[in-house]
């Protein structure tokens, strides 16, 4: 009976302990502190966006979104739009995609699938990572010193006084700027493909190229695609190198009837640069309303790109 009594009391102790929930003051304070940090970050973001939207709203309300995005640049505040800038940014991004994707993805495939893992390749890998961290203005200097000259020399210098400071040079410069990021994201996507897939391919007598072409690349494609879309968004929003390599910060018209070649090699501008120049424009309406409106257009494009990247990733994400 003694042991039974002892066991009952032991159970009571357990019950008591289980119910002895204590109030943890430190824990609550810490949680509140973390929440405060989060709210601060959100508040900054919301204030920024609210401020921009408030500035941009009159433009969109009075002229409509369509009129604003289809009107060319102008000195007159009531007719100025961003169509020229959108055209410039889109051609720039297209050039970046055409140049940086084949080079970047090719380099990534070589590094990940072919190159042997030795000191040289590790050194190259480290430096690619370093290059990704180089400030964009430095790439602008490179663009001005080398690429603008190169573009002029090979005959794409463009009409008039452009002298190679055109969207081709800008696109090439921006392609070099994003190249390290393309290589890094593509390398990571390739690395995420399990080696069992490669072994299976080799096991049935596929060559290295066949394994890559039929199994590794299709498996890595969603990851590569996601990374490259984000890269393009970066190129779309980047400003500093463009300012250096002579993007038109003033106002110009390509001229009605200008050929496609002239448009491509002539003076150009880009969305973030328009935001920059309008925000310094003393004319009525530019700083307060038009610049925020251009920011909204820029943000919508970037958010759409990011959303597309997320959607693609979720849709094609593989579970191994």
């Amino acid at each position, binding site marked *: 009976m003694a042991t039974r009594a002892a066991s009952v009391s032991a159970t009571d102790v357990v019950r008591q302990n289980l119910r002895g929930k204590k109030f943890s003051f430190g824990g609550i304070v810490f949680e509140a502190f973390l929440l405060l940090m989060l709210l601060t970050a959100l508040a900054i973001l919301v204030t920024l966006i609210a401020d921009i939207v408030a500035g941009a709203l009159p433009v969109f309300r009075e002229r409509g979104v369509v009129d604003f995005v289809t009107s060319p640049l102008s000195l007159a505040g009531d007719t100025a739009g961003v169509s020229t800038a959108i055209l410039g940014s889109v051609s720039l991004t297209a050039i970046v995609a055409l140049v940086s994707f084949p080079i970047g993805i090719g380099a990534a495939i070589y590094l990940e699938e072919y190159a042997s893992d030795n000191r040289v390749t590790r050194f190259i890998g480290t430096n690619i990572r370093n290059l990704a961290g180089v400030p964009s203005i430095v790439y602008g200097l490179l663009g001005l010193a080398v690429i603008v000259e190169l573009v002029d020399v090979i005959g794409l210098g463009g009409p008039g006084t452009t002298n190679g400071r055109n969207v081709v040079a800008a696109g090439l410069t921006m392609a070099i700027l994003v190249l390290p990021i393309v290589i890094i994201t593509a390398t990571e996507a390739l690395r995420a493909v399990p080696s*069992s*897939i490669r*072994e*299976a391919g080799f*096991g*049935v007598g596929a060559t290295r190229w066949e394994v890559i072409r039929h199994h590794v690349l299709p498996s890595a494609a969603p990851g590569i695609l996601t990374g490259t879309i984000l890269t393009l968004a970066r190129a779309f929003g980047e400003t500093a190198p463009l300012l250096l390599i002579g993007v038109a910060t003033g106002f110009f018209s390509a001229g009605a009837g200008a050929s496609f070649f002239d448009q491509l090699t002539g003076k150009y501008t880009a969305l973030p640069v328009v935001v920059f120049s309008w925000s310094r424009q003393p004319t009525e309406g530019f700083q307060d309303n038009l610049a925020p409106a251009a920011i909204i257009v820029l943000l919508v494009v970037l958010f759409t790109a990011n959303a597309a990247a997320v959607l693609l990733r979720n849709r094609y994400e593989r579970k191994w």
Partner: protein
Amino acid sequence: MTASERTDEAEAATPPVDDGARLARRVELPDRAPPHQAAPVGELVFDVRDLSVFYGDFQAVRDVALPIRQNQITAFIGPSGCGKSTVLRCFNRMNDLIETARVRGSVRYHGVDLYGADVDPVEVRRRIGMVFQKPNPFPKSIYDNIAFGPKIAGYRGNMDGLVEESLRRAALWDEVKDKLKQSAFALSGGQQQRLCIARAIATSPDVVLMDEPASALDPIATLRIEELMYELKKDYTIIIVTHNMQQAARVSDRTAFFTVDVRDNGQRTGVLVEFDDTGKIFTNPGEQQTEDYITGRFG
């Protein structure tokens, strides 16, 4: 230790019964299992001589010599790290994919040294198929999983027929014939592994290497794979690495026992201890180390 002492010890561990009954009790032979008798001597498929494998400076396997004969199932058993998978991967030059791996000695396949300078490893792998430890179907349809190997090998015949034939041989056809276009990942683990076997035999190899093909499967799926191996033995030469001694005893004709040789300087190298008919290895092994391992005293 003398032979008689060893026999005494073995009998102390297991009551003295005649060999057949002892084996049957130990491994629960399925009905279709052939009795373990000395396997008929087939043509020599692989002749391994003085095989050593290095990963960088580390010697993984030392001086392995093995003859592998046609239409037999040869099992490699032994504790972890004894190099049995490493040796298996020498048979289709899968070790080539590991950059630091180096092979010394010779692996003669129908008389040709697989590590000869003019040997094409891609052609080797077409003739010597492989099934891996974890089922690794391609992230494609069931049909494409089978058709890929023949397609890249330039197969011009009736692909639908070949896919069906391969799936039938792998005893999977009835389960998947209505969903050939579905993803291979929709299959169960055991079905995936049989799909991998079907994929391996679709290129009409004459050898199938299996690296612990059932270790990730449940007992029922394992049994199906083992039954499949009996069937495949008629047409193929099979080499299987297994951690499961009962499996080796159940399915194989010949068994190679590997172990780890630890040197004084702590270096661990895989060595082949004994290679003989499976019945002999499991009932009357010639080496004390084998006896210790199969009776569970070591490993």
